[in-house]
């Protein structure tokens, strides 16, 4: 059996110094520029004037990706992960994109002391993970969860009456718009349980039932299973950008609620597929303009060292008996 095919999966280098940085295809120049934007656009909540779907939802379906780097570093997005500072990390702070923490104003997550110690311990051990807990869960193909999914690869939004569905590189989120009650609180999930509604140009989503396991990135920023997240996806009038604004409330981890902002832009057939932001396949449509579609997303099935085998996690054993 060809167990470890190298497909669209997250394929990671063997354990080495700072082994948790996945090799990634170099984005095309145009897309690379969009990934290294230094500023976050302001998009005001307002009425929606763009196209709508037959059920009345603003039509925001299509491909999207973040514009200020990946999940390597939550509060200094373009500085690189712990132990491996980017070239830009040498520049003055104001020459890199701002912290994703928009409130408090200092750009730091307002951890309680014990929680701060846990985050710092993870960051310190990330470059040389000697225990399973120091492996970034995404490197094991865990769902990227909230909010990391919006800093990982590009993703597709599909909309239906009563639903907004996010097809992420790692995991799928189904946001129900029907106002139904959340799952019972005993159920804790990587992506949480989402209920949303539209307010003008803004998709407002309430996320409960979080398991807190996905972490926010390679510095170990986190919430616990007691957290709730209030998300606002604010789309611009042209439908080409949105800002993801999420307020995290968790009295067991934070001294007060705080807010993250992650900017994203739309990707279309005028962009070049790059295997990261715009990770798509060309459609087979002879003599018609080029367009693209979502490719199969597989990870645990193809993953090598971190999917199992690393630091005590078996790779060939059964994980369920049902």
């Amino acid at each position, binding site marked *: *059996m*060809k*167990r470890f*095919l190298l*497909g669209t999966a997250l394929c990671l280098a063997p354990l080495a110094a700072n082994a948790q940085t996945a090799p990634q295809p170099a984005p095309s120049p145009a897309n690379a520029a969009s990934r290294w934007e230094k500023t976050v656009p302001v998009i005001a909540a307002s009425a929606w004037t763009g196209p709508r779907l037959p059920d009345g939802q603003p039509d925001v379906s299509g491909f999207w990706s973040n514009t200020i780097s990946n999940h390597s570093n939550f509060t200094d997005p373009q500085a690189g992960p712990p132990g491996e500072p980017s070239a830009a990390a040498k520049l003055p702070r104001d020459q890199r994109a701002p912290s994703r923490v928009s409130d408090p104003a200092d750009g730091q997550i307002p951890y309680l002391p014990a929680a701060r110690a*846990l*985050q710092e*311990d*993870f960051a310190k051990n990330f470059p040389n993970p000697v*225990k*399973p*807990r120091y*492996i970034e*869960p995404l490197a*094991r*193909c*865990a*769902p990227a969860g909230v909010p990391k999914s919006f800093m990982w690869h590009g993703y597709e939004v*599909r909309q*239906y009456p009563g*639903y907004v*569905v996010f*097809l992420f590189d790692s*995991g*799928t989120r*189904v946001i*129900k718009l029907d106002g*139904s*009650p959340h*799952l019972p609180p005993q*159920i804790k*999930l*990587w*992506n949480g349980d989402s209920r949303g509604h539209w307010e003008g140009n803004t998709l407002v989503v309430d996320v409960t039932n979080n*398991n*807190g*396991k*996905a*972490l926010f990135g390679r510095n*170990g920023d986190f919430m616990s299973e007691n957290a709730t997240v209030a998300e606002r996806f604010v789309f611009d009038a042209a439908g080409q950008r949105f800002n993801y604004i999420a307020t995290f409330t968790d009295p067991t981890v934070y001294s007060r609620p705080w807010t993250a902002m992650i900017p994203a832009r739309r990707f279309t057939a005028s962009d070049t597929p790059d295997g990261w932001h715009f990770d798509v*396949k*060309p*459609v*087979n*449509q002879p003599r018609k303009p080029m367009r693209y*579609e*979502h490719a*199969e*997303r*597989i*990870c*645990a*099935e193809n993953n090598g060292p971190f999917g199992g085998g690393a630091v005590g*996690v*078996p790779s*060939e054993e*059964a*994980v*369920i*008996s049902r």
Partner: protein
Amino acid sequence: MANSTLKPLGAALLLAALAWPVSSPAQTRTPGTGPAPATAPAALPRTAEGKPDLSGIWQVLGEAEYDLEPHAGRRDAPPGPGVIDTGTIPYRPEALAQRLRNFEARGKDDPRLKCFVLGVPRGVYYQAPFQIFQRPVDLTLVHQFGNQVRTIHTDGLLHPEEQHQELWLGDSRGHWEGDTLVVDVTDFNEETWLDRAGNYHSEELHVTERWKLIDANTIDYSATLEDPKVYTRPWTISVLLHRRRDKGFQLIEDYCYTLDYAPFYPHKEGK
């Protein structure tokens, strides 16, 4: 109605007695249109474009995924009558030997035990719900188990020019033949199984699915499997899929491949 004061059972019996041999109410209302069926079929749900609307949460009811072939009850499977048109799978002799080896090793080699994607068609008749989201250009199948998400494209496009991608779920292109969605699925790898009994396929598998709503809450599903490396001729699986109508039912993500390492997060020593 005049008899509305009767208790329900009495009313039903009385109506049944009256209904034969006299005309049914439908015939009485619309004379000259021919006999009405005894029970008028509920209209199929349809999209704005007039296609059958397969949206919803579906699940098999049956034993197919334990073993597609007829089988008596055993330690790890309830009895099942089989769901194959040919009775048993028409394996080539050498492939049958492999299938028997798979069966013997099923307690550890079934990819399901690692929570890998179950593939096509196994994910459809696995005993867990999946949700169909439908647009004119595609159907998206989100399966509760693991990370299986499949797009069935219905925009008239061809399979990709790029061949031999060896996809876990294959590449699905569908079209409507009347009210039946016919899906051509190609370009598989050889990693997935067809059931818990070790029935299997090679990377030459070609699946033709037929999805047909037979009432608002039931899909008649079939999958015809061709694989010249493994089978002597095409054969067909047929199952019914039922709409999950439990009050407030929704999918609950089940990324079970995370279970081994989930106890380490967030920032924990583990088990």
